[in-house]
């Protein structure tokens, strides 16, 4: 009888020890899993960058119109995009037009989102682009108001984040009408060509 009781007690002790071992293993496993498995893993598309003859790198993006249009915000629109959009009717917003797009790379794959703002403001007109590529960073470009010969508009890269943080350069925008007769083809596309130039680091003084 005493042996039976002793065996039972031993069994309970081992059971309890197994349980505590499980707790320790659970704590370690959870910590290792959280450390090793990335909480966020952004999908990436290989960049299609070409080297410009005059230095720097060039990259093409485009927006298919109308399918990549997320929003068109402007006063007194007959058809709102998206349906149900309520653009503020305040006087201060009267000269502002803002558009949100998805942007595509040269392979016609969506790689990011962008906003284009055109504002008329007592002679201080503004056309700005912000391109946001989730896995890479963002670009802020301030465009010239008047288009150049050839129908394109030139802009300066004013700032950028992450991968684009060290770049200066220019970007052009151009409207290209679609001439194919394909069904479901876009009416046209906005072509954006960004030319990146690395920032010059100041020279170390020679001793």
């Amino acid at each position: 009888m005493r042996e039976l009781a002793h065996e039972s007690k031993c069994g309970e002790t081992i059971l309890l020890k197994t349980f505590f071992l499980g707790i320790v293993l659970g704590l370690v496993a959870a910590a290792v899993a959280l450390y090793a498995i990335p909480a966020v893993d952004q999908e990436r598309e290989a960049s299609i960058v070409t080297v410009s003859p005059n230095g720097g790198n060039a990259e093409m993006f485009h927006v298919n119109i109308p399918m990549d249009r997320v929003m068109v915000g402007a006063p007194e629109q007959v058809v709102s995009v998206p349906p149900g959009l309520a653009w503020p009717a305040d006087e201060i917003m009267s000269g502002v037009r803002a558009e949100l797009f998805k942007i595509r790379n040269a392979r016609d794959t969506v790689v990011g989102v962008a906003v284009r703002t055109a504002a008329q403001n007592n002679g201080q007109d503004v056309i700005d682009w912000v391109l946001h590529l989730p896995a890479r960073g963002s670009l802020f470009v301030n465009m010239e108001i008047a288009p150049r010969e050839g129908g394109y508009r030139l802009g300066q890269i004013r700032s950028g984040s992450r991968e684009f943080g060290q770049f200066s350069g220019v970007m052009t925008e151009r409207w290209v009408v679609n001439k194919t007769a394909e069904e479901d083809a876009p009416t046209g596309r906005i072509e954006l060509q960004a030319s990146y130039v690395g920032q010059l680091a100041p020279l170390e003084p020679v001793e």
Partner: protein
Amino acid sequence: MKYLVSLLLGLLVGAALFAAGLVYNPFIADRTVSPLSVTDAEVISLNFAMVPAESIVYTNDGESVQAPHPEKVLQLWEPTIRMTSAMATVMRDARNQVAGFGVKFMSHSESTRLLRGEAIVDSVWYVYLPEHGSIFIEQTENYFPLMREVAFSAWKSSANSWRGNWFGDLTAGPGALGTARVSGGSGRLDGLSMEGVESMTVKAFSTEAGLVSADGRLIIEMP
């Protein structure tokens, strides 16, 4: 068999203890005071609605807690942008007058480290203020305090909702003092490099609808 069951139960309890430790970790301190709140410099203060239904447009992959607004807006479902959301909203000044509009792009960041209490979002703002000009804001935001104090509390509640008054800074970088990098693009802000902080006030949250009552604020310190 009973030893295996005991081990499995232990594993589950261990994982649960770890999760609880993560949420209640006292070593993960919340930054409560923004360095810009004590500045003597001129600041631009902008208020905006954080609830998607109160914005002009809000869109994401369509499967997140926050529903896109308006309902038929194009969704960001493509693999490269499905962890991104975009919001266009009216920006109001300190007197609650319309000062312009802003667009915010937010993407989940690969630098998220939950072990260190960092749920990071890489975000940029484009803000156009007719009286000042245009601004580009680059920042990393940490949503861990919000998740811990608001979302987790709502999840614990039997009603799956939270009501209260939570205020905190979302901006966590890239500035050394946890501030955002701000660049002026036009108008009187043209060419200026500034710093900024985005903060948020939440009054109601639901696990089913996300933010129910919340406002955001951008403070930009002029040089």
